[in-house]
């Protein structure tokens, strides 16, 4: 493969991506993103279409369309084959398959003389056009930054507060009870727990900021009795916000 050809670049990028993923299969950094995405969505198809067609047969736009389509197909096929061969769809085997396929196709293309010379041409842009592109970058960066920023809720947005109860895992006669505030402002609550209608415990005031939660494990006594919890705000203690009841102690709690 000529050192200044498109296929040399394809092989180099595929090798770099393959080596990087082999060394750092579980990390996410800029180099991994910059090399990993082309290894899935561009390079195998580019090399494959170069092996099939001579440069004179394809315009660059056609080559690009085929590159993406064939890369996607190769990726789907590799997933099906790995699954059929009971190889887990993990980073290392996948990277190895796509890298080897890309290099093999690039070598086949080079053997057939299907190379495009890499030319680093000077872009003939006016200064105003360079400025237009620079402003474009700024606009897109600003659009992305603003788009990804959570904003204040619209006026009238309904917050909510959740009360929950489950048996404590691996501990008999203990319940976990919790409150999750999804309100837009800090609120104060009272929580009353009862067993068979008799008061067991009372908590309050529980002050919760937006997004905050509160949780307790409470021993309720022998016999795994039915437990009821009533949540109210301190401002309106007689109006319940939420009510929970636990009568089936077979609930398989994972954590609390």
């Amino acid at each position, binding site marked *: 493969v000529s050192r200044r050809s498109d296929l040399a670049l394809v092989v180099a990028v595929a090798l770099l991506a393959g080596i990087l993923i082999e060394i750092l299969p579980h990390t996410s950094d800029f180099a991994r993103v910059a090399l990993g995405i082309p290894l899935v969505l561009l390079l195998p198809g580019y090399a494959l279409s170069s092996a099939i067609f001579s440069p004179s047969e394809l315009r660059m736009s056609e080559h690009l369309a085929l590159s993406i389509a064939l890369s996607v197909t190769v990726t*789907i096929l590799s997933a099906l084959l790995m699954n059929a061969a009971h190889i887990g*769809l993990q980073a290392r085997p996948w990277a190895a398959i796509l890298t080897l396929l890309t290099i093999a196709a690039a070598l086949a293309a080079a053997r057939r003389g299907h190379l495009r010379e890499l030319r680093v041409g000077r872009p003939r842009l006016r200064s105003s056009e360079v400025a237009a592109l620079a402003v474009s970058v700024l606009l897109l960066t600003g659009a992305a930054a603003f788009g990804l920023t*959570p904003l204040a809720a619209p006026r009238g947005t309904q917050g909510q*507060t959740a009360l929950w*109860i489950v048996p404590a895992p691996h501990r008999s006669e203990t319940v976990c009870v919790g409150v999750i505030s999804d309100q837009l402002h800090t609120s104060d609550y009272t929580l009353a727990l009862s067993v068979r209608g008799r008061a067991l415990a009372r908590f309050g005031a529980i002050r919760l900021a937006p997004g905050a939660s509160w949780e307790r494990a409470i021993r309720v006594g022998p016999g795994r009795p039915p437990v009821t919890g009533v949540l109210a705000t301190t401002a309106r203690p007689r109006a319940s916000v939420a009510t929970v*009841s636990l009568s089936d102690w077979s609930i398989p709690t994972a954590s609390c």
Partner: protein
Amino acid sequence: VIDTLPAVAWARSRLGVRLSTPWLVLCASAGVAVASLAEGLSRSGRPGATPLFWGATILILVPATLRMAQTRVRHGERAATLVLVGLALYAIKVLRDPFSFTFADEFPHFHNLQAILSSGRLFGSNSILPITPRYPGVESVAAAVARLAGTSPFVSGLITIAAARMMLMLALYLFYARVSGSPRAAGLGVLVYTATPTFLLWSAQFSYESLALPLATVGVFALVRWQSAPDGAARARWMAVLVLVVVGVVPTHHITAYALLAFLAGTCLLHLLMRQRPGAPLAIAAVTAALAIGWLALAASGTIAYLRPVVNTALAKVLATINGQASTRVLFANQGGAEQTPTAERLIAVAGILVLVAGVAAGIWAVRRQRRASPVLVLLMLASAAYVLTLPLRFVPAAWETASRAGEFLFVGVGLVVALGIVEYILRPGRLPRLRPALAAAAVMFVFASGVIAGWPASLRLAQPLRVRAGGHTLQPPGYVAAAWSGATLGPAQRVAAEDSDARLFLDIGHQTAFSGVFPDVDAVLSDRPPLKAWQRTLLRRNKITLVETDRRKVSTDVIGGYFFDVGSPALSSAAAAAKFDLPGASRIYDSGNIVIYWVRGLW
């Protein structure tokens, strides 16, 4: 001529602006920035979002249309401009939902992706759309991106669909240019294609069709290259590409594979009817049929059972509507049937459809006049006529979705045919030369706006409050909180019955097996008046449902709009229906007001 348009001439003389690629990039970037602002205003409940949204689409589409209308534009520049438009329009969808997927079909596909990444295996299970794991194409590609680039599953999904969008715009342009012989008509045709009602949002979702359709478009481009190949060796090469593409389409999406097969079969038939047998892709059609049937038999045998009720119901409802036995659908309404689209938008939508129909007629007339139709072009004309004929189906409730889905494929014909009409009747040399390109741009923008209005409920077109900031924290809507709580506290092994939108959250956020809808009839179990009937207990037992989530908010039954914060008091359904699970044997383990989760193992 375009350079003499007053606005373009002013920009050129005063600012040194030409309709060159850097300026088109600037216009599209400005469009994306304005769209970001519009989405931000919308999700924070401020006014002015809708005009900004339309301004953004004008900034993206109109300069590109003016450029495409010019004659002396290089092939590569046309292709680059169309890719730019495709990605800029995709950015609008991404900016609408920048934090997570919120479209009804995105939840099951995202679940499949997460399952592949956690298990390392394909063909898992999916309780919401059981057929989707049997077509793992889009999830495989996204999983490969996640594994090899180290990006999150959500970002990997976005990257996959962005690549699909690039592929669609490029392949459609190349296909149109080959079929029409006119790069100008091809460029305009792709811009007309963006007026497909589903293009801006629905087809940009993380879903199997969003990848399969672009792949199939590369397939039809390869077909026309195969047909025009100069020798046997070149034909063999293009056939190899076409077969490879079909191999990618078949395990990605059922309907697209069948649509591609129908296109190939239609091309064969027209070649035979037009006595041009040498170009008939008989072998390719046979290979496609064999692959599609093979996949159906070996990997996705449930496809027919999945598609049959949809088609049968649509046909039955069409007949019932024609016979006057069923009511017609309310146009421009959300899922609940309430009309929400402003009158002005409805007028634009209807007028845009009329413009589109006129464009189809003009395009067909132009091709007939020139007597240069190839079998593929005739097929595209037939597809465009079929699209017009499917428009009345939008009045039929059960057939609306089928017509809308068919529209995506049929619009491939509409795009080129309307563009040929524009080139022949609007852009041809004649009187008022300055007005003609502007008229073409206005027509494209008009049909695009019409498609957008018809394609999505107006109230949900722009971003809704999904993540909001309060007191230095970021909050999520109640459905997300309930689903996340179930996953964290009860683990991922629960089987949940919930309303349509909540079930999708339990699937993705809670990692539970979630049921909704009518198979099994969870809808009836949740909405029925008390007491809980014996058959409902049997349904819970047979499906081993351990959790029932009741959500009194009527919006929770809406798979498009049920995922967001309620702004204002939500409309509520009957309290009695929700409270019928307050029974001995059931535990009310989570209560957030409108949403209650019951542990119902004791009711089996």
